[in-house]
């Protein structure tokens, strides 16, 4: 059943990458519990436009939890209070009348703020560009069924591949580490026969680029797993570490 909420929002406002930001407080009345969190922000923005104040900038697109575009720290939690849920899938029924909600952008050295709640996550693309693929040109592929893949491996590879690249793992980690993100990609290919040829170089290059981008190191607190809306497990990190170790021992370049 739907109910109506009156809310206080404390939202990070920052005009641009080089300007200083600050929290600003807004009061919103009559928010239906049926609304999604982003629909609540839509209402705020509509009201701001009417008042002549620039609306709050935030990233979003699919609004169904798959594109990885939405990215908010809500009361100190990446994507808010619900597990395995992106901000766009979070609904206002999770909140109570007269709640105060603090909304911030992802905070990480490698994700600089562009404006308000929008951050730059292109560091992830640069990590992908050094190894997040199988080097196969179009036209060279053998028949899809020529290499059988055990169902368990295919399923496990998919468990890794469902990462939406939102960056919540980085935002939730006190060291702003990207190991869950990288571990997921490394694991996907390590589990599949198609990924074997480049197995050694892949993990080395992706880890090197991750360090270069300024992400912190992993200290195994598993905050990333708790925040991950796609349910990626920290097993991916263990597997990546193993892959990295093996690659170092093999000594390949």
């Amino acid at each position: 059943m739907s109910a109506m909420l009156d809310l206080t929002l404390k939202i990070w406002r920052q005009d641009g990458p080089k300007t200083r930001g600050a929290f600003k407080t807004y009061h919103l009345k009559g928010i239906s519990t049926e609304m999604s969190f982003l629909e609540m922000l839509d209402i705020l923005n509509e009201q701001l436009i009417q008042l002549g104040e620039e609306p709050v900038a935030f990233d979003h697109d699919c609004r169904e939890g798959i594109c990885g575009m939405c990215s908010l720290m809500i009361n100190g939690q990446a994507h808010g209070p619900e597990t395995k849920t992106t901000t766009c899938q979070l609904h206002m029924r999770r909140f109570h009348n007269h709640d105060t909600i603090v909304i911030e952008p992802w905070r990480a050295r490698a994700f600089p703020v562009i404006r308000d709640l929008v951050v730059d996550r292109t560091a992830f693309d640069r990590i992908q560009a050094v190894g997040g693929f199988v080097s196969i040109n179009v036209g060279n592929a053998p028949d899809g069924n020529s290499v059988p893949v055990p169902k368990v491996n295919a399923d496990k590879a998919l468990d890794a591949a469902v990462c939406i690249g939102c960056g919540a793992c980085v935002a939730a980690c006190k060291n702003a580490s990207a190991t869950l993100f990288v571990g997921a990609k490394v694991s996907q290919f390590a589990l599949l026969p198609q990924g074997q040829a480049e197995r050694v170089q892949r993990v080395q290059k992706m880890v090197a680029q991750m360090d270069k981008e300024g992400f912190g190191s992993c200290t195994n607190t598993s905050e990333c797993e708790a925040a991950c809306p796609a349910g990626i497990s920290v097993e991916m990190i263990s597997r990546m570490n193993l892959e990295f170790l093996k690659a170092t021992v093999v000594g390949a370049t």
Partner: protein
Amino acid sequence: MSLNAEQTGSSDLVSRVPSGPVAEMWDKHKFDLKLIAPTNKRKFTIIVVGTGLAGASAAASLAEQGYNVHAVTIHDSPRRAHSIAAQGGINAAKNYQNDGDSIHRLFYDTVKGGDFRSREANVYRLAQCSTSIIDQCVAQGVPFAREYGGTLANRTFGGVQVSRTFYARGQTGQQLLLGAYGSLMRQVGLGKVTLHSRREMLDVVTVDGVCRGIVMRNLVTGAIESLAGHAVLLCTGGYGNAYYLSTNAKGCNVTAAWRAHRRGAYFANPCFTQIHPTCIPVTGDHQSKLTLMSESLRNDGRVWVPKTPGDKRAPNTIPEADRDYYLENKYKGFGNMVPRDVASRNAKQQCDAGRGVGTSGKAVYLDFAEAIKRLGQKTIEEKYGNLFHMYHKITDEDPYQVPMRIYPAIHYTMGGLWVDYNLQSTLKGLFVLGEANFSDHGANRLGASALMQGLADGYFVVPYTVADHLATSKLPPVTTDSREFKAAVEEASFRTKQLLGIQGRRSADSFHRELGHTMWDYCGMSRNAAGLEKAIGKIRELRAEFWTNVKVLGHDHELNQNLEYAGRVADFLEFGELLATDALTRNESCGGHFREEFQEDGEALRDDANFCHVAAWQFQGDNKPSVLHKEPLTFDEVHLTKRSYRE
């Protein structure tokens, strides 16, 4: 007209469909197309706008071949394109199930599914390419669903009687896009692709009648920039958001296609829009988008409504005898797996007859109880876990316990920029791929065929056809300093300033919502002449009001999401009129285009004598009527028959 001559429409439309038997056309055509020698490819620059399945696959393939590629996207990363949201699967005529599938059957199903309004030659080629797509994706490490023996698994989609859909749980689009994105990023790493993210294409630039580049806004700095090259590929997706509420992502837009249309690319069949039968129903005025529940769910879910209008009992307490499984009863051969247009229309008929469920009465049940009993919850979870999770999140109801409530919503657009067999638009040098073109799905797309088309266009078609353009066209050197580019940049900046200067009283969102209501009410699941005329009047008024009363705050030299949005709404307001005009002009019902005046027992009544053609519209100027060109369609392989799913 036979296919043995180059096909010319009633006007200047040249479809370039090759001669000969349909099964041999593509091979013959590939042989006839001119090539660019490997060492010469690096002398050419190709601009690819959009990095969804169509754009990412095209950009990666062209770069692999040695061309210099610019890839442009409105998103922060190519991986965010709306293809990521595709759930159910991708078709391919592999016949791995040994159930009688073949290229010809996929071709036949698609032509029939499209209600005989697509080009046979294109559809045949699509079916031919389908098998290589799966091979390519597997090789990229896409983790498709597998059987215990390690072979690829399949499921069934609507409108067909074989199992040819490949999938990765309910995240097939994500996995395919990430595969293509990987290939694209590899080329970015190798320096063959220059990636321009957070850039919105605002115009195409034509030099001596040939498309040579684009103008785009840097969404972070607000700078108006341009790119010059030897060919431009538009892969910018569909226009479903003209209806405001749709299953598309919020950023999906018609801007790129519409701007190209204004520069000379004809727009084909804009009224062919797809309304998907299984979406989560609207809950209130705050609603910002609608969420799809994949068609694949109809493999195991059964659609029903209470037999008695107004029956408000909880679904689980309604006995079998009081339920109407109307699709199973009416369409014996296909049951719940009828095509989308048929399923949507039937849902509407049930709700209009007062048998709809839920608080609004605008929903029908999609029930898994029987499947859960038969297969166990674990199996259902494996197949559709993420969809059930999504449904639960949004509605707060657990679909393992109670049936889903679903209702049709705008989902996909079959119409798009007109292209010839080479995927080239009427603007020379401008190619259009994926959902942005009109070519393969006629008046109704079958499930799991859009992913197939995007990847066929990008991996397997355009790399050949672009080469022919480069080899045969006069393409003198052009830079962004040329007069044409400067003028286009000037125009785009002017428009941006214009939007900021109005300072009216209504937000862009309020205009968009109002447009959406008009489109849905008069140009949605069922249409009639009086309603369409009314819609056209309303859209014109709304457009006029927009340009005097929209309120866009902020500046042009910064990240300004409101400004971006206002520009897109402005284009929807122009495009919406064309969509309604096309619907009004097409005096027949076919596929997703249902004109109330033309029906038989509630089924669409086609008029092949007068409307067996592609309607391609030419822009004439602001507020001037567009000119209609017709490309006649011939059916030599799949004979024109009444489309029926009853047997």
